[in-house]
């Protein structure tokens, strides 16, 4: 397929289809809160309108994609190092999960060690020193200077 033909194609419609489903869920869910009346709009009034609009506009996007054609789903990740993105997301969720148990400093050092090595591989001691320095800097900035209550883990810090 020629470059100019590819560039005219839409992104894959699966995103729009998901939004249609979400919009329907919002529309149906808003009835729980009461639509009210036009004289006295209820709590579900604006959520209902937003849900209907979400369904409507995302449906238009689906129709336009069907008419124009779309790029294959895999093309969105072709030529990219998508595994890095997965590593970042998993690491962040693990950070959330263990933050309170490990404490801010230890959890942050582990997090920064993983992130610093994601796109580039310096020597291990450089990575660990950088991770410690960054974690300590942010600890001082937020805990000491800005008086945030950062979590202490089983080690007491």
């Amino acid at each position, binding site marked *: 397929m020629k470059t100019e033909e590819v560039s005219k194609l839409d992104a894959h419609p699966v*995103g729009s289809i998901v939004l249609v489903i979400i919009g329907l869920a919002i529309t149906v869910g808003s009835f729980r809160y009461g639509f009210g009346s036009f004289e006295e709009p209820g*709590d579900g009034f*604006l959520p209902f309108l937003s849900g209907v*609009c*979400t369904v409507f506009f995302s449906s238009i996007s689906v129709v336009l994609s069907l008419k124009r054609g779309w790029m294959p789903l895999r093309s969105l990740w072709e030529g990219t*190092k998508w595994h890095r993105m997965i590593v970042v997301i998993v690491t962040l969720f693990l950070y959330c999960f263990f*933050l309170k148990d490990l404490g801010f400093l230890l959890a942050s050092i582990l997090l920064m060690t993983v*992130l610093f090595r994601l796109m580039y591989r310096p020597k291990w001691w450089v990575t660990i020193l950088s991770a410690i320095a960054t974690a300590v800097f942010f600890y001082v900035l937020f805990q000491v200077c800005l008086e945030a*209550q950062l979590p202490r883990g089983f080690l007491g810090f």
Partner: protein
Amino acid sequence: METIQHLFYGLAVVFQPVHLLMCFIGVLLGTFVGVLPGVGAACTMALLLPVTYKVNPVSATIMLCGLYYGAMYGGSTTSILLNIPGEVASVVTCLDGYQMARKGRAGPALGISAFGSFIGGTISVIGLMLAAPPLSEFALKFGPTEYFSLMFMGIVMLTFLAGDSVPKALCMASLGIFVGTVGTDAISGMERFTLNIPILVDGIGLLPVAMGLFGIGEVLVNVELTLKADVFETSLKRLLPNLDDWKRSIMPILRGSVIGFFLGILPGGGGLISSFASYTTEVKLSKHPEEFGKGAIEGVAGPETANNAGAGGSFIPLFTLGLPTNVIMALLLGAMMLYGLQPGPQMIIKHPDLFWGVVASMYIGNAMLLILNLPLIGLWVQVLKIPYHLLFPIIIFFCLVGAYSINNNVDEITIMIIFGVLGYLFKKFSYPGAPFIMAMVLGPMMERALRQSLIMSLGSGWIFITRPISLITLLIAFSLLASTILPAIKKKRQVLAESSGD
């Protein structure tokens, strides 16, 4: 005369050491952020919001405003030296700025960019100072109906300009309005869509969403790529434009100031639209249009002036009407509300120290930026060389700690990461994030205005038509929507006519 007195009052406010320091920090950070591609002013503003809780609202607002117009200055550096816009508003500067650098004229390009930004920024502050007070008085006549219509028009205009697909942008705006309704309803006290999750009872906060969409989401997109920027190695010894450069640039600078200022006031306006409009104007007015795209200094002077003037103009609707015209202003609105301030017609009356302090700080800030961007340009060139593999972990970490420190709650981090993943997916499937954020900020206000209007009119929608200001703004909004649909219908009719003729 009264305006001058107010300005002196503002100068007295801003010359307090803490305000001067915050102004300097804001413009310095703004330039830093503007220089670095991959880190935007919106992301940085979201990162800084938790930090600003600890300072007084006037200082915080001065800093955040400085961040915005500082980023407009800094964005030109990467455009000229890297051919990559540091800020979205500097994309036009790449066209001629980089070509000037290739011809060994990076210094004059950077120099005229800095001077143009200073002139445009200063003119727009004068405009803000003169226009805001009378506009605030006029806005006192607005009721909930006018506000609803204005906010509706603002969202439609932003979606119109946000991306390639208007339906996708409108879908995002609708979703943003919904997300704004999650939590406890301010009128009835009922919990909506909280799914029995305690953190959602107070609603989904702006900060984790903004940090997620613009911080984490941006990083997730960038880590997939192999980002390599070759800084154009050139002499920066002569930064001052020569007489010929000034002769060619002075009119584009003056035109850019006016174009930028007025376009900045419009919803969807700000730096980007202003710079495009200025570039197009200069091409049309030039006696040598063939030089554009090949290193015409007018192609740098006009747009860079316009984007700074647009930044200044965009403060007017926020301060006088409480209506943001772009994402940055939406975040600033959210920030000011978190500080307990209500931007709008009453703000100048109730918080004169804030308004006039911010206006005065913009004069000071623009002067600081001229110094930062000319003699210190060598420093910013070094900043350009910071590798992304060092930068992105810091951005992520700042987001994490910032999100946690909002309420000392890990759940805020979880929300931020979820919106970070959503932001990544939005980008992949070409859904713009700006309408989402703007609608999320405006949604609760729109709901309140809509419900009040319908109660006032006993359920009749005619109230939006019978009130003149509301009618005009709705007509503008629907005209814009029609302008996207009608060409498609016309084309369809042409195709049908041609095929029936066969």
